[in-house]
């Protein structure tokens, strides 16, 4: 069992790693509710190496976090690039998508890049074993 106290005691880098995973899972779940499974499916696939690193811990975990942080940076950069492309030429873009490219969208994209960079730098600080020792 993971106790609330364990989560509360996690260091900042580990908490941010969990946050980045939750963001991905929430996006997947939002689509599940409308009957679209691939965002969650792809998300879970991308999570597999991280899960492997988590199970192996130590150096493997650091490598997995490195992989994950690069993925988060790429995700943020792709979002920014897409915004730039659509700003340059919006022909053929459905309005439902076009009007999602707001200031809020831009801030979220930048946040993903910052989040990824932070995880990359702090990857050695990430450890579940110290705090989640009660996991059965």
């Amino acid at each position, binding site marked *: 069992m993971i106790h609330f106290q364990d989560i509360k005691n996690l260091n900042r880098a580990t908490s941010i790693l969990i946050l980045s995973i939750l963001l991905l899972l929430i*996006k997947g779940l*939002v*689509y599940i*509710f*409308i009957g*679209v499974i*691939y*965002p969650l499916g*792809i998300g879970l696939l991308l999570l597999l190496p991280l899960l492997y690193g988590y199970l192996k811990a130590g150096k493997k975990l650091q490598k997995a976090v490195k992989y994950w942080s690069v993925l988060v940076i790429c995700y943020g950069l*792709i*979002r920014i690039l*897409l915004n730039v492309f659509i700003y340059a030429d*919006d022909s053929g873009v*459905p*309005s*439902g*998508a*076009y*009007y*999602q490219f707001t200031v809020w969208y831009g801030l979220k994209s930048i946040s993903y890049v910052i989040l990824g960079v932070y995880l990359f730098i702090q990857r050695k600080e990430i450890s579940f074993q110290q705090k989640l020792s009660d996991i059965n």
Partner: protein
Amino acid sequence: MKSTLFLIPSFILLSLFELEAQVDPVFLEEMLPFQKEVIAKLCGKSEISNGMFLTQRASPEEREITAGYLSNSLTAIGWKLENHHYKATNGNPFLDLILEPMQGINVAAVLPATILSDTYVVFGSHYDTERGSPGAIDNATGIALCLSVARQLKQLENRKFNFMLVFFDQEEDNEVGSRAYAKMLKTTQKNIHSVHTIDMVGWDNDNNKGVELELPAPELERLYNSVAQQLKIPVYRTKVSSSDHKSFIDQGFKALGISEEYVKRDSTPYYHTPKDTYDTVNFEYLSDTSYFIFNVFKTLLQ
């Protein structure tokens, strides 16, 4: 000389037919100012709500204002609102990984039958526009037609079917709104007699009052042809599938789309442009077509 002798009676005969094809003057008198007001509000010629003028109906805010206006209009003419809020995929796996789902409102309302009935006749049109277009003909005309027919239906003393009127959101985004609605309607297991969607009914350069029936179910095609024959309105069957009717056909409903002569190229040249304005609407054609559709529904009720 021989040909002149033939032409004179032909001309007289044609003129008689033209007279017969005229819309009921009472209908015209009631409908025309109403339809003009609806289209003026929808495409920014007059304000739609407190100081608000719409230049398009494409952004979420503009669509929400339009949905509010349409909801109020339906309530005002005595229809019971049953709006449908939906979320849908962006239609592209890559976009779905990046963006939130699309969302919108299909403005829907019901007019119950005057006798006990579980059968529904569905009709409607889309209310969104392409970005940068005021969308007078595409598709404020469709909305004006539906609202005016809805008003007339309410006044009928005997209706053996329930009517359901739906203003679809996001037709310009690959019919997202109508696809969500058709899917939802399928799950309700309601007894749907037929679905009639109207898209662009404001251009008639050759003044023939022609209407195109898009992918009509055979039974509906016969019905429309018989009413058109009485009103001397030329109708043409087409295979156009790029509008809301296709969403219902795909779900197995008996459906058709109705439009100006899009395939025969007597259609607005300002399609999806900033020039699709109030001033380009042929209101006489709109009234004629409204009268035609109203008569189709009246025939259905007989």
